[in-house]
């Protein structure tokens, strides 16, 4: 039942309709100058990147088990059952651990604001209850970005690869990257050639910190027993000496 987005870079013509549609979601300004900035930032939550004749799109990958949500000390970021990773601005205290932890360098910060917040794509979570498409995929004239059920989109992607094996690189980006993401990407060339990080782990990142965190109760119990024991032994000498002195 999880919503997902399939971006087929072979269909993308770089018209940037997705960028302008996204700016309406966040009521952000959008003009030629911003269109030319080929990177995401607090005022541009998705971007088209040009690699020669090819295009690729960057947006929040909406990981299945997101690092940002696991590291957030106040649970401002949350993976919803419906798929999107959403941000509850009222909780955020601005530690920016989410930005440090994101394997795709997605969350942006309002560096020039006096009271800044994190900005990132939320998969048009306002439309999730009605199962509506994201604004970017709604406006995409070529069908390069489409919204749907994750399992169905994976099936669709596999079908496209199988039907035109010469036109596609034989992999879907987002199936195993950091344990799976809700944004899936198809490409004609290996993904690293069009700006996708292929060096990310193949398993979910939160497990790495959990491996350490899960030992906290053990440290508390063992620490108390050890400290108490050492105290008992180290102070016994004194007690004995005291009593001997009394006799």
């Amino acid at each position, binding site marked *: 039942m999880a919503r997902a987005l399939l971006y087929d870079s072979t269909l993308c013509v770089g018209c940037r309709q997705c960028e302008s549609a996204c700016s309406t979601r966040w009521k952000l300004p959008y003009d030629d100058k911003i269109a030319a900035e080929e990177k995401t930032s607090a005022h541009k939550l998705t971007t088209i990147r040009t690699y020669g004749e090819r295009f690729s799109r960057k947006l929040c990958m909406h990981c299945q088990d997101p690092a940002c949500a*696991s590291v957030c000390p106040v649970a401002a970021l949350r993976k919803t059952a419906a798929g999107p990773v959403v941000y509850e601005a009222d*909780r955020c205290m601005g530690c920016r651990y989410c930005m*440090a932890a994101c394997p795709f360098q997605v969350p942006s910060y309002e560096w020039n604001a006096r009271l800044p917040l994190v900005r990132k794509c939320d998969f048009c979570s306002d439309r999730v209850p009605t199962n509506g498409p994201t604004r970017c995929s709604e406006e995409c004239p070529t069908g390069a970005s489409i919204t749907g059920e994750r399992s169905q989109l994976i099936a669709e992607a596999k079908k496209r690869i199988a039907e035109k094996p010469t036109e596609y690189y034989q992999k879907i980006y987002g199936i195993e990257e950091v344990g799976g993401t809700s944004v899936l990407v198809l490409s004609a060339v290996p993904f690293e050639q069009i700006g996708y990080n292929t060096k990310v782990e193949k398993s979910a990142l939160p497990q790495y910190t959990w491996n350490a965190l899960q030992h906290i109760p053990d440290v508390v119990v063992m620490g108390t027993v050890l400290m108490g024991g050492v*105290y008992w032994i180290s102070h016994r000498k*004194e007690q004995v000496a005291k009593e001997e002195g009394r006799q």
Partner: protein
Amino acid sequence: MTLMRKYFWRGIFWILIAGGAWSTFVRFYYGLGASTNLSDQFPWGIWIGFDILCGVGLAAGGFTLAAIVHIFNIKSFHAIVRPAILTAFLGYLLVVVALMFDLGRPYRIWHPIIMWNPRSVMFEVGWCVTLYTTVLFLEFLPAVLERFKLRKAQAVLKNVMLPIIIAGVILSTLHQSSLGSLFLIFPNKLHPLWYTSMLPVLFYVSAIATGLAMTIFESWHSSKAFGRQLEYSLICKLSRILAVVISVYMALRFLDLIHRGALSTLNQPGMERWLFGLEIVLMAVPMLMFFREKTRENPHSVYLGAVLFLLGFVTNRLNMSTTALEASSGVKYFPKWTELAVTLAIIAAGFAIFRFAVHYLPIFEDEHAHEEEQRDSPAHDLPVLATAKGD
């Protein structure tokens, strides 16, 4: 001459405070963008790398000394527990101040208390630091109660001190190691010379060493500033323990590097290997120094060794938080002058408050009282007996 010196240090102090004050204005009026060189690619700078990571580590003397004296009952170090706890208490308060600069919305610093995310290392660190600062306050309180002769409160506090001290050691163990766990989420971002699943253990052991080194550092300075002799024999003794702790750390560090095959990355060009080398040398040299009896007999050499080790520790933490992350971030980071000014002002404030507290509160044991106590006791070779009587 001494007057010149005094004015020199006062001048430096006020320059640092003035720079900090202006930077504070820039930070809170114009925001993080104007006051730091941070970016979306490099969201953590020296306010995290130095003020928080090093600050918490440098304040580890509080729990280390409290455990040595009150749990392991090694009474000879009793005279330096209070200054160590004062340093730690001040250290943690300054860490919180620094955090207020770094947080985008500092007025929400209390949020983790009611908005929980137990999967987050930062959540755990936040809770531990909050609780441990409270513990340090309670450990420090006897000095204040003594000063104002509140005997009844003193007696009450003494009865609950043992659980407080044990809680302090455990809370410190948890968050000193968890500061290392913070970096476990970066398996592909952190350079292999630094990324290891052993990070919590390495952070913990190096924090203990730093606590000891910091105690030597601060005892030496108080001895100089207040013309005291008592600490000299103690800092020489501490250096022996420190030598062992550093060698444990070095063994862990290199075993881990070898097991992961990370040393092969030393062939790769770049500044990482040089800064890694600097970090190792600054820790290995004092370790070797402390193993020599000649060094241990000379307070000046012990002090020098402690300073070298502290620099090595700071290099390690800065490497963790900046050097090791630069390559994967795709940008270069060097702090803006306002970032440095805030950090330096916080350090200067720390020194000033320490001096102030030492001046007005009974932080250092009265040497003469201590000597008399020893003279009164019949068995000189049984120091345990002597102090037990003093209780």
